C-alpha cells in the first residue's frame, strides 16, 4: 500500500493559526495541570456535558481530541498493534479506543504526555455497544471510575429537528429524555463534588450557557455565510479547527472572542470575493469524522479538478446542536444538547433530514461519505442518508476507511477514488 499520509492542508485565515496556537498552549497548560500538578481531571467523550466540568473548573481530556492528538503523532498503528498483542481482536472499534490502546501499551517513554495519569472519573454516553466496554476497561486500567450516561430511545422523530432545536427543544428532544439526562447530570455533579471537593457554581454555569449561545451564534452566522458564498471562502480544513478548538473551550472568553474573529474574517473574505480555492468548479460535502491523519486529502483535488470540499459537519452543526434558548432552565437546555448529539449525526431520520437540507443550502454538487469498516456507530445512517441525497439529486460516494487508523488509509488511492467517482457521475 502506498500510503502518503499526513500531507499538510493549506491555511489562509490568520485566526486559524491563532486557534491552533491557543490549543497548543492549552495542551501544555492542561498537561501541567493534569500530569505535573496532578489536579483532579476527567476523561470524557465529546458528546458528554463538558459544561459541568467547565463550571466546576475541572480539567477534561476529551477522548476524541486525545485520539486525534495521538493519531497526529503517527502513533495510532503502533498502539493498535499493541492492543492486538494483548489479545483484543484486530477489528475492534478504532475511533473510541485509541486512548485505551495508548494506556494499555504502557510505554511512558513514547506516549504523549508520558501517558495519561489516573483521572477522577471517565464519562461516556452509551451510544453504541462498544463504548461502555472501552471506557470500563480504560477505567480499570487507570484505576479509576467509569460514569456511564444513558442514550435514551427517541420516539418523537422530527426530520426537521434542526429548524426547531433552538427554541422548541423541549418538544424536539422529548421531556422524558431531558428529565433523565438532568437526573444523571445531577448524579455526576454529586460525584464530582465528592471526589474533588470543588463545588458546582449555578451562576457560573448559567453564564457559561449564555456565552455558549453567543459563541455558537457567531459560528452559525459564519456557516450560513459560507453556504451562500461563491466561491467558498474557507476550506473545511480551516472550518474544523476554528469551530472545534473554541468548542473544546466553549463559553470561555477566548472561545467567544475567537468565534467572533473567525466570523469576521470569513465575512471579510466573502466581501473581497476571495475563495479558499482559486479554481472552485465543484462543491463537495464530506460526511463523517475528519481524517486526522491526512488533512491534505481535502485539498488534493482542488487544483486538478476544481473539486473543493466546502462542507463538513463540525461547523454547520454548531447552530442546531448547541444553540438553545435557555428559557430559565439552563440544566434542561444542556440536557437537550447532550441527549441527542450523537443520534442526530448517526440515525435516521435526523441525520438524513439534516444532511439533505444542508446539501441544498450549500449548493453541494457531490458528497463523499466515510464508512469505517469496523465501527457500527460511525457507519450508522450512512446508507439511508446516501439514498436520500441521491433522491435529492446529489451524487454520493461512500469510501471504506477509518478516521484514526492510518493503516487502512492510502492517500493516493482515496484521491483517485474521488476523482473517478466525479468523472463517472459526469461532473468533471
Amino acid at each position: 500500500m502506498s500510503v502518503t499520509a499526513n500531507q499538510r492542508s493549506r491555511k489562509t485565515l490568520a485566526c486559524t493559526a491563532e486557534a491552533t496556537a491557543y490549543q497548543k498552549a492549552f495542551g501544555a497548560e492542561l498537561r501541567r495541570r493534569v500530569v505535573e500538578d496532578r489536579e483532579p481531571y476527567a476523561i470524557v467523550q465529546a458528546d458528554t456535558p463538558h459544561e459541568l466540568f467547565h463550571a466546576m473548573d475541572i480539567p477534561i481530556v476529551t477522548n476524541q481530541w486525545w485520539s486525534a492528538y495521538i493519531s497526529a503523532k503517527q502513533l495510532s498503528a503502533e498502539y493498535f498493534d499493541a492492543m492486538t498483542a494483548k489479545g483484543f481482536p484486530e477489528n475492534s472499534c478504532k475511533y473510541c479506543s485509541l486512548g485505551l490502546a495508548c494506556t494499555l501499551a504502557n510505554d511512558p517513554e513514547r506516549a504523549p504526555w508520558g501517558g495519561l495519569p489516573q483521572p477522577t472519573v471517565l464519562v461516556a454516553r452509551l451510544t453504541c455497544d462498544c463504548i461502555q466496554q472501552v471506557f470500563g476497561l480504560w477505567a480499570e486500567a487507570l484505576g479509576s471510575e467509569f460514569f456511564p450516561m444513558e442514550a435514551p430511545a427517541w420516539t418523537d422523530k422530527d426530520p426537521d429537528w434542526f429548524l426547531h432545536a433552538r427554541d422548541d427543544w423541549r418538544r424536539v428532544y422529548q421531556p422524558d429524555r431531558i428529565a433523565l439526562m438532568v437526573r444523571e447530570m445531577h448524579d455526576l455533579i454529586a460525584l464530582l463534588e465528592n471526589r474533588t471537593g470543588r463545588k458546582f457554581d449555578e451562576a457560573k454555569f448559567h453564564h457559561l450557557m449564555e456565552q455558549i449561545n453567543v459563541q455558537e451564534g457567531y459560528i452559525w452566522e459564519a456557516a450560513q455565510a459560507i453556504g451562500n458564498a461563491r466561491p467558498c471562502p474557507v476550506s473545511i480544513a480551516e472550518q474544523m479547527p476554528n469551530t472545534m478548538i473554541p468548542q473544546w473551550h466553549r463559553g470561555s472568553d477566548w472561545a467567544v472572542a475567537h468565534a467572533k474573529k473567525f466570523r469576521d474574517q470569513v465575512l471579510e473574505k466573502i466581501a473581497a470575493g476571495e475563495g479558499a480555492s482559486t479554481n472552485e468548479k465543484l462543491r463537495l460535502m464530506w460526511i463523517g469524522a475528519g481524517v486526522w491523519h491526512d488533512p491534505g486529502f481535502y485539498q488534493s483535488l482542488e487544483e486538478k479538478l476544481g473539486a473543493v470540499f466546502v462542507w463538513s459537519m463540525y461547523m454547520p452543526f454548531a447552530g442546531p446542536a448547541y444553540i438553545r434558548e435557555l428559557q430559565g432552565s439552563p440544566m434542561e437546555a444542556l440536557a437537550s444538547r447532550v441527549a441527542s448529539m450523537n443520534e442526530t449525526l448517526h440515525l435516521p431520520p435526523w441525520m438524513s433530514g439534516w444532511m439533505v437540507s444542508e446539501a441544498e443550502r450549500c449548493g453541494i454538487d457531490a458528497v463523499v461519505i466515510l464508512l469505517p469498516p469496523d465501527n457500527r456507530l460511525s457507519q450508522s445512517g450512512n446508507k439511508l442518508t446516501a439514498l436520500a441525497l441521491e433522491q435529492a439529486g446529489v451524487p454520493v460516494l461512500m469510501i471504506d476507511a477509518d478516521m484514526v487508523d492510518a493503516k487502512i488509509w492510502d492517500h493516493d488511492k482515496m484521491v483517485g477514488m474521488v476523482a473517478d467517482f466525479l468523472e463517472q457521475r459526469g461532473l468533471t
Partner: protein
Amino acid sequence: MIAIAGPDLPHEVLLAAACHAGPIAFDPERETPQALQWVESKFAPWAFAVVEGWAEHAYDGLEAVLFSRADDTSQRLYYYICELQRRGLLAGPEPLICDIAKIPRASSVDRTADAVRKLAQRLGVGDEALEAAIVATNQRRDSVPALADGKRCLLAGTPPPDDRLHRAIAAQGFVPVGRTLAEDWADLGEPVAEASGDPALAIARGMHARQSGSRSFADPATRLRAAIDACSASAVVLWRIEEEEAQCWHLPAERRALDEAGVPALVLTRRDWLARDGAAAEITAFLSEITP
C-alpha cells in the same frame, strides 16, 4: 400479535395482553439484496434477514415488532424500520422500542420501569393483569427442564442463528449448553418479585439486572466462570462473529478465566455467522481430542 426482536424485553406485558408472538422469525440463509441497500455492514447479521423479510411482507400478519435498547443492532434497526416506513419503502407491522436502560443506577431502573408502564398502557394491561402474568411466568421459569446427563460442552459468546453449532457438539457425544439467538431473546431470566405492589417496577428490576447481552455491566469473566460451573462443563467453545462489537472487548479476561478454570477450550473469534468458515469441523476436531 407482537413479535420481539431483541434481548431483555418484558415478556410479562406481552403475555398479559395475550399478544406475545415470540421472537421474530427469519431465515438466516436468505439472500438480502434489499436490506443491503439500507443497512451497513457492521450490523448483526440477523438484521439483514429481518429487514429483507419485512420488505417481502413476511411480517404483515403481525400488529407490531418490539425492539430493545439493550442491544445496539436492535435499537438501531428500530429507527431504520421507522424511517423506511416513513419513506414508503417498507410497509408491514409497526415498530416499537422498549427503552431498556442498563446502567447500574436508580435512574436507569426507573427509566426501564417507565418503559414497561408505557408498553403496558399501550396494550391496555393493568397492574392486576401484570401481576398475574408475573406469577404465571415465574411458574414457567420454575418448570425449565434440567440439563441432560452426560459430558457437557458450554457454547458461549455470540448466540448462533440456529442449532448448527449445537449439532456439531452433540455429534461428538457432548451435551451442548448454550442458547440460540431466538432462545436468548425468549429467555425469561430470573424470577420476578411477586406481590411487590408495583409490578411494572418489579419487571423492570428483573430486566435491568439481567447479566447477559451486550449492554450488561456484569463482569464477563465472572459470568463465564459461573456458566462453566453451572453446567459442570467438560469443554468450552467460545464462538464470536465478525460483527460482534461488545463482547470482543472481554476476550483477554475471558481467556484468563478459561485458563483458571482448567477446562479445555476452543476460542473462535471473528467468525462467520452462518459457520461457512469451517467452525463445525473445528469444533469436531477439538472435542474429538478430549478424553472424558
